[in-house]
């Protein structure tokens, strides 16, 4: 699987490349700025671009802007954005109207090689990856309506994993549940939260996050 990495911090970039290489990815290019990244994506046509959100010149959201451009222009290329801080605002910008092939993770996540490698693959395959910290913050947020309060603990767990972009299959494995049980939980959650059900994992992420964000 072909990967490009963009981060202006060389030390961290090298670390990520080492981890990716160890996990069996083929790193076909690296960049320190957003324009260099865009060029790299066009020339190398990677499966995934891993992008730090803060890059020169302003060190604010250059990486995010570039990620959105890749998402819109190179639909086959997955984009995984890494950030020092997780912000709901970033997630919403990144997901846009059509999620899929995008991911948003805390930089710390790279150290867990297996998990990180699976996240990169998920994004490359057109799935969505949302950092668990974003989801837990959203779930922990105080809400005017108390529809979330109607959910059981198990249902909340399932909702969280859905929001992280995991498929029913992944949820089943994670929670060690049967496929039918997971499907039952999902149906129950959607009916309790009055959300329209969708078979598409990515649309499901969007619906769940949009709901949680309100």
């Amino acid at each position, binding site marked *: 699987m072909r990967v490009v990495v963009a981060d202006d*911090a060389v*030390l*961290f970039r*090298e*670390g*990520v490349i*080492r*981890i990716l290489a*160890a996990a069996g990815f083929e790193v076909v290019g690296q960049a320190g700025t957003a324009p260099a990244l865009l060029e790299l994506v066009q020339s190398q046509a990677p499966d995934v671009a891993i992008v730090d959100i*803060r890059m020169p010149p302003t*060190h*604010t*959201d250059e990486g995010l*802007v570039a990620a*959105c*451009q890749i998402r819109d222009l190179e639909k086959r290329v997955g984009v995984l954005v890494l950030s*020092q*801080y997780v*912000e*709901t*605002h970033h997630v919403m*910008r990144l997901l846009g109207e059509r999620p899929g092939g995008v991911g948003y993770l805390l*930089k*710390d996540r*790279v*150290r*867990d*090689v*297996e998990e990180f490698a699976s996240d990169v693959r998920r994004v490359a395959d057109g799935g969505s990856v949302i950092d668990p910290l974003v989801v837990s*913050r*959203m779930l*922990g*947020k*105080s809400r*005017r309506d108390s529809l979330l309060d109607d959910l059981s603990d198990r249902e909340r767990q399932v909702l969280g994993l859905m929001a992280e972009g995991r498929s029913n299959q992944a949820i089943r494995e994670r929670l060690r549940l049967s496929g039918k049980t997971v499907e039952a939980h999902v149906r129950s959650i959607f009916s309790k939260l009055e959300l329209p059900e969708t078979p598409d994992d990515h649309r499901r992420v969007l619906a769940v996050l949009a709901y949680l964000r309100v």
Partner: protein
Amino acid sequence: MGTWRRGRWLWLAVAGLAGVSVAGLAVLSWASCDCDKVPAATEAARVVAGFSFVVAGVVGLAHRRLRRVGFLMSAVGWTWFAYELGYIYQPLPYTIARLSAGFWQPLLAHLAIAFPSGRLRSRLDRLVVTSAYVLYWGTSSVLLAFWYRYGPTGGQTPGPHNAVRNLLSVHYDARWHEAAEFISQALVILVAVAVLAVVFWHWRTATVAARRALDPLVWASGPLAAVVIAYTVLGARQFPAFAPLAMVALPASFLTGLLRMRLSRAGVGPLVVELGQTPAGDRLQAVLARTLHDPTLRLLYWARERQSFVDTAGQPAHLVSERSTRVVRRIDRDGEPIAALVHDPALQDDPELVEAAVAAARLALENERLHAEVSAQLVEVRSSRARIIAAGDAERRRVERNLHDGAQQRLVTLSGALKLAQTRLHGEADGQLGPVFQEAARELDLALAELRELAQGIHPAILTEAGLGPALESLAQRSSVPVRVLAAPEHRLDSEVEAAAYFVVSEAIANAMKHSRASLISVQVRQTEAELLIEVADDGIGGAALNRGAGLQGIADRVRALDGSLDVISPDGAGTRVIGHIPCAQLAAHRFAAAHTEHAGRMAT
């Protein structure tokens, strides 16, 4: 002022006494003479006219600046009564009376031309006045020399009742006498016309302030000229009975002018009141000009740092140009000038008025100076406070960036390396080291999380990056007490305003979490036309105050640095509301720029 006023009353008494006694003597000599004399009505009018000059003149003598003109005026009065001296049938008084009965005419010419300063200022002035004196004495002595040897009934020889001798008689010849009389009358009229012309010329060329002083004379000069000409042509006997009363016009208007001056000085009272009511500013010049009746008056301020005078617009100003006749009155304080009045020289005629106005102005100026000094200091303090806060913010951003680029990156890399080592270790199957690595990895996780919290507390990157709305949302999500963001501006604001609003909210939330035992905190930031309103309310135990704790005090300073205000409403047991206001002047300038940036941002994404 007190002694001066007492002196003036004394002068007035002297004036009255002198007027009454000289008029009394005149009436007495008129009454005691059983000769051919003017009718009683005429005599009465004459006495009133002379008396008025004497009194007005002596009143003028009481004023330092009017002494000369007062002297001339009273001299007109005294000599006016020389005519009555002729009723004393003795050769010397009679001769003197004949000689000087019209002496008041050149004196009146002198008075008119020297009015109101009492000085003859130009060569023309001196020429006209000297001619008046010379022509008078010349013609009157010539006339007397060719007059009857005995008077007043006439004849070359003394009669039964009229044996008064004309001491100056040289030769009597009716034709000579008539010719001399004709010439003298023509000369008198000529001089009168010249004097009128000079007076009018003075008035025409006078400054506005000086015209005020000349006005009484100009108004009186018509009647005066008429009296002089009538007297000369008709002589005292054929003089219309009440004609001398017209003479009263000059003393009357002179006294009116003096009274007006007193009223002007009384106008300083309202000046003080007016200056006291409102800050003086530019109006001080206008008010002084009005009070002193000098529209050309200029007020110059002393600029200490430039060591020169500046005008009310702050432009450097020279006190007086070289050819100017304008008068400069410096206003000093502790030996250093604070201002200067540049005014019309005519104001010097009433120095007391100028002094009173200056005293009033000094108060206002002093007030204004202190006000300016305080506001300058305030501006300096404000801007330095704003600079300190801006510097603090820049420093916060720098520290956060350094943490991000340095320690955090290294820890993450280290963490990755550790994890990698751990994975490899599994292959080596060393049961001893496994838990140690796990412990190290957990500690590293905690360190990273703490560092992240710290960096975000120092300066939230999201605030710079996405503005107040996302930053507040992020803040709310990170809080352990539920925080609801009810409203936040959707567009970007000035970074200082955003930072101030953000730290108000974050400090208020931190405060609520620490002390209030609140279960819910609500945040709203709304922008109106006039201001940005920040409100953080909780449902806790209340009892918070601005002066308790450095945190709230710090954000209050931050808000005040933007000319805003911060209030804490926190009654015991009824929750706490922290309310900040930041005025819109700080926002408006940035609204366009913010909209522009947002637009550009959308274009980029």
